[in-house]
């Protein structure tokens, strides 16, 4: 459904809306009329769709498919993919191994669909030898993994798309703009009258007040479990899984929202914070960022 619609908002403003990466997306451009917004919205949407197609793990023939079917061979990646891998490698190093591009394999045993249950510990254990960035030989632009390992860019792609779409909008117009991909968002400056952008964020947690974000510029990302969790024996298993154990971290917060200069940075901080479990707040504090944690 690759269309962009310009819609009227309750406050009288306009938003360009589209779907990308299984999320509702919107572009706000302060002062733009319907025609201009439709054009700018399409520009942002095309960039999101390009990024989705490039790193989707479901799309045969793309670079991710090539990497995941290399079966132990060295693959040379393009410059943009190398940048994303390098970024993920730094997140791995900065999170004591919690953030890991190779963790996607765990989806095979962890499902958070309606009626799903906790996996067999033996099945989790069996996957661990194929997970871990330390098993990957990465010397940009060359990448070599053990047979059976997989890369999954799901943890960084959406936030990267927000930053890229905003960068394109900043080039195309001098008007203040905001890009929101399913609650991960970034703005390039305050609105023309100097006021903040106001965005409600769905933490995905029932009966929790929806935080209203007032953002001047920069980015905000939220990682919430959006009902994607399993309860067993009174224990809650969230959807963010620690690649070192194959299990969700104990006492993980249900939702974490972080502000950053870029959405890529903010998104990385939210995911890593959840992987710090009960220490999420302390860890975010040590990163000197503004954040909001729902436990």
């Amino acid at each position, binding site marked *: 459904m690759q269309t962009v619609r310009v819609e009227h908002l309750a406050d009288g403003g306009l938003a360009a809306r589209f779907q990308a990466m299984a999320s509702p997306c919107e572009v706000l451009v302060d002062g733009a009329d319907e025609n201009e917004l439709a054009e700018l919205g399409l520009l942002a949407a095309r960039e999101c769709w390009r990024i989705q197609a490039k790193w989707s793990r479901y799309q045969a023939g793309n670079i991710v498919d090539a990497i995941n079917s290399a079966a132990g061979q060295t693959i040379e990646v393009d*410059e*943009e993919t*190398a*940048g*994303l891998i*390098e*970024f993920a490698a*730094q*997140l791995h190093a*900065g999170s004591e191994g919690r953030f890991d591009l190779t963790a996607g394999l765990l989806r095979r045993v962890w499902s958070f669909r309606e009626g799903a249950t906790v996996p067999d510990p033996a099945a989790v254990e069996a996957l661990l030898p194929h997970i871990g960035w330390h098993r990957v030989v990465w010397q940009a632009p060359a990448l070599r993994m053990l047979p059976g390992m997989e890369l999954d860019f799901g943890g960084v792609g959406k936030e*990267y798309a927000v*930053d*890229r779409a*905003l*960068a*394109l909008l*900043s*080039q195309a117009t001098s008007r203040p703009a905001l890009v929101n991909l399913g609650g991960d968002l*970034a703005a*390039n*400056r*305050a609105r*023309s*009258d*100097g*006021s*903040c952008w106001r965005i409600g964020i769905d933490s995905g947690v029932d009966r929790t007040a929806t*935080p*209203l*974000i*007032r*953002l*001047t*510029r*920069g*980015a*905000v990302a939220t990682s919430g479990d959006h009902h994607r969790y399993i309860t067993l024996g009174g224990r809650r298993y969230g959807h963010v899984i620690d690649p070192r154990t194959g299990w969700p971290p104990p006492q993980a917060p249900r939702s974490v*929202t*972080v*502000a*950053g*200069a*870029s*959405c*890529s*940075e903010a998104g*990385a*901080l939210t995911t*890593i914070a959840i992987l710090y479990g009960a220490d999420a707040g302390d860890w975010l*504090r*040590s*990163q*000197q*960022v*503004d*954040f*909001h944690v729902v436990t």
Partner: protein
Amino acid sequence: MQLNGPQRRNRFAAAALSLLGASSAATAHADDGSDWTFDTSTLLYAEGAGRVKVFEPKVNASLHLDESRTLAATVTVDALSGATPNGAAPYSKPQTFFQPHSTSGSSGSSSSSGVNSTYTTAAYELPKDPNFENLRGALEIDYSFAPAAKQHMDLSTALSVEDDYTSIGVGGHWSRDFNQGNTTLGAGLNFSSDFISPVGGVNTPLSQMVGSIANGPSSKLKLVQDMVVGVTQLVSPRSLVQVNYSLSHSNGYLNDPYKILSVVDATAAPLYYVYESRPGSRLKNSLYTHYKARAMGTDVFDASYRYMIDTWGIRSHTVELSYRAYIAGERGYLEPHLRGYRQSAADFFHAALDQGQVAGTRFASADQRLGAFTAYTGGLEYGDRHWAGHDWSVRAEYYRQLGKVEGLPPVAGNALARYDVAPSLSAGWLIFSLGFR
């Protein structure tokens, strides 16, 4: 919830920037993309009773070269006018003083004794030089950068020029973050050389005032060295404590070349006037503690205390409190501010001298800034952070200084006590600031 981006760059911010920079020519405009910022401010200051008035516009331009490097230039102009106390004690009859002026004007004509000019002050009033005027221009250039990770360095150079005073200075301040940025240690050094060339020349200290033209050389030199070390500690996510110790040494010509003292008889009648004389060196030690905390969401509470002690015998205490309350959805803020100050007099402070004292003293000054006094300042600032994308503020302050009578000469103490030798002083000022982002 107010989320406005990181206060300080974490390692992921840097990684993300390199990701976005590498992907294409366009980087994400998390900053607003402008490399220049401009700040302007104008001070309007007026003292009560027709004393000094100041008009001081200031412009700062900063060029943000990259994440850590900034080059900034600040230009300040001060226009000062009004009457300023000359140091003489009040008396029951009008008093006449020589007005200093140059021996040679721009025309190049020079003369000697025939050029004396005078001014006369009213009976019972604290004598003031009514023709005090000064224009100052100053330029400061700062360069700040990160010499290594977690380190910050500021280098600065300053030039200030007046008719009778030129100052040049260089300085550097280094700081380093420790303990995940929760602790910052800093140290700084500053040197300045001041060339003082008073109108009419330099008078020999404690010599008698006999004319408009000085009896000494045309100029003098003053050297100042400052050192500061400090630590800032985050004590909770919402509060910090800062402690600074600073040492300031100055030597050379430390007099105010225009300040005099009355030499009086037992009835407090002025016999003649002598130029002040201050020691040729001064060492100041001060300790500064500062507590800053967020309150009620995003409001900011500030409290500080400074203790200063110097080799001239002055000890001072400064207490300062302010509270910044955000209003109108954090669009603007109101900040009330209170300051209390008390200092003791310098050892050589004299309201006037008697004849016996003149013979036996090496140092003497009647400058009220070296006397004992207590002062209070109260003010209010209103700032608007989002005015068409810029920010502006206006601050109004009121200052009240209460002098304490000290340093009366033994022979004329009772006679002088009839006069207001340490009058109180009121001043008010307004500061308008406008920042362009």
